[in-house]
């Protein structure tokens, strides 16, 4: 004996998402490519007018990019920059998520921790970064610290808010079905918080890129920062813009990849409707 079985009538009221999203996904890609092409065209036109002698057209920048890849100066600088960036971002991610989740779960940690991160987020970090050198000198540690200081607050605060906003109803559900505190955290709170935690990560990683470039401009000229400073000083503006565009592109790609990781790991229902 079973209950009435649903036929397609009720299900049809909500058409499965994958049926409609495939063509939309295709045209979305088209629009994105069109937007990039339009941007490059406008850049080319603006550079040729020219707006300013220090603003080269897109084609010059693209050529400069090719030259710098060929002579190895750009890849070498990138590798140089990536070291403090990766160490800093990974540190900020691990520390930020752990502290944020802990603050969301325990009130006494919230009182102790949240004001510190709010102050860190509000402070003008570019002014404070040179102060790091007084304590940590001009080496790798100072640059890693610059990345962490910029990336950590937003990651920690977003994780904290995400956990704090976890649905009381789902938490009660977990308890009523005899879930332990640990199961409640790992099976309910973290998956539910993951979209907001990942938003914090995206913002944090973007901030990390800002931090590493600032460190290389303000602390010691190495890597990308050095390349920017050098080409600006000898008026190779095309090269300078090629370096800046590269670091922006790298940041954008990293943030985009992170989004994919999030959907794959935590939110299968979004993958289903996005494919």
């Amino acid at each position: 004996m079973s209950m009435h079985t649903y036929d397609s009538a009720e299900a049809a009221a909500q058409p499965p998402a994958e049926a409609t999203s495939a063509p939309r996904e295709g045209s979305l890609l088209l629009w994105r490519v069109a937007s990039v092409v339009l941007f490059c065209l406008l850049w080319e036109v603006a550079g040729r007018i020219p707006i300013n002698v220090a603003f080269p057209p897109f084609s010059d920048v693209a050529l400069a990019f090719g030259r710098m890849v060929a002579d190895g100066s750009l890849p070498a600088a990138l590798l140089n920059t990536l070291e403090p960036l990766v160490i800093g971002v990974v540190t900020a991610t691990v520390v930020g998520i752990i502290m944020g989740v802990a603050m969301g779960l325990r009130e006494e940690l919230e009182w102790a921790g949240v004001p510190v991160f709010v102050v860190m987020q509000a402070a003008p970090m570019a002014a404070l970064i040179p102060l790091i050198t007084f304590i940590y000198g001009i080496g790798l540690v100072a640059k890693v610290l610059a990345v962490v200081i910029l990336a950590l607050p937003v990651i920690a605060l977003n994780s904290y808010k995400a956990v704090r906003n976890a649905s009381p109803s789902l938490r009660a559900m977990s308890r009523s079905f005899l879930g332990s505190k640990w199961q409640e955290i790992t099976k309910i709170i973290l998956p539910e918080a993951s979209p907001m935690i990942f938003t914090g990560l995206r913002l944090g990683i973007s901030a990390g890129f800002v931090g590493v470039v600032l460190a290389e401009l303000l602390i010691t000229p190495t890597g990308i920062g050095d390349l920017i400073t050098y080409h600006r000083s000898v008026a190779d503006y095309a090269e300078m813009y090629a370096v800046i565009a590269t670091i922006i592109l790298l940041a954008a790609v990293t943030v985009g990849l992170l989004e994919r990781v999030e959907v794959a790991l935590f939110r299968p229902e979004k993958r289903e409707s996005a494919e």
Partner: protein
Amino acid sequence: MNAVDHIRAEQPHRAGTAADAIVEVCGVSKRYGSSVEALRDVSLDFPKGQLTSLLGPSGCGKTTLLKIIAGLLEPTAGEIRVKGTKITGPGPERAFVFQDFALMPWATVLRNAAFGLELRGVSKAEREKTAQHYINEVGLAGFEQRYPHELSGGMRQRVGLARALSVNADVLLLDEPFSAVDEQNRRKFQEDLLRLRQVENKTLIFVTHSIEEAVYLSDRIVLLSPRPGRVSDIIEPKISRDRSPDEIRRDPTYLDTVEEIWRGLRAYAD
């Protein structure tokens, strides 16, 4: 007046004497802070195998009482006994169906229905087999791999019911399960619940604010009065359940009982 049996609320609580009571509420009071008194000295027995409704106007503490029975809230005074043992929190012999469904949006119907067993460490194959059985039972076969946002309100609550049935608890606690379900689906769901009751030998405790729903479904109706919540009456509708839903809804006994409860509750209407 002979259509229903009244059990006087003043009747002293017979703790321990009711052999067939699976859940006993003994002198339970609940205060929120110092000013809000949600429940005052409520004593009730819930007989095994019956469907008992907690009915009353909003603010009478019926959901509070259900959550105390579930072990999700602590009573300020008094205690709950399940199968004769005092409870200290949620337990395996009770399963809860939530008003807002409480489904995990990131999990499929199958995983949601199996979640109670997942929390208990039952192996994936075994828990999915059990969940599958109850998914079929509540009429959701074919929807196992869907996500909650792809389902209607009525179907979502069927997942909530399948999850509660899967853990094989003796007592199902339903907190206004149909209040977020539209009217047609609510009726169909009520009929299905009655049919399911005949198959599954469960004790159901059901919170509702709908008089018709309570009379249609219940063996016993506990009427609660508001602020503070107290038991004002217990009614046992004498409606034969072996007829069709339409016949029950036109049964004079059914209509008289609804009318009588309404007269009793009228005083509390705003």
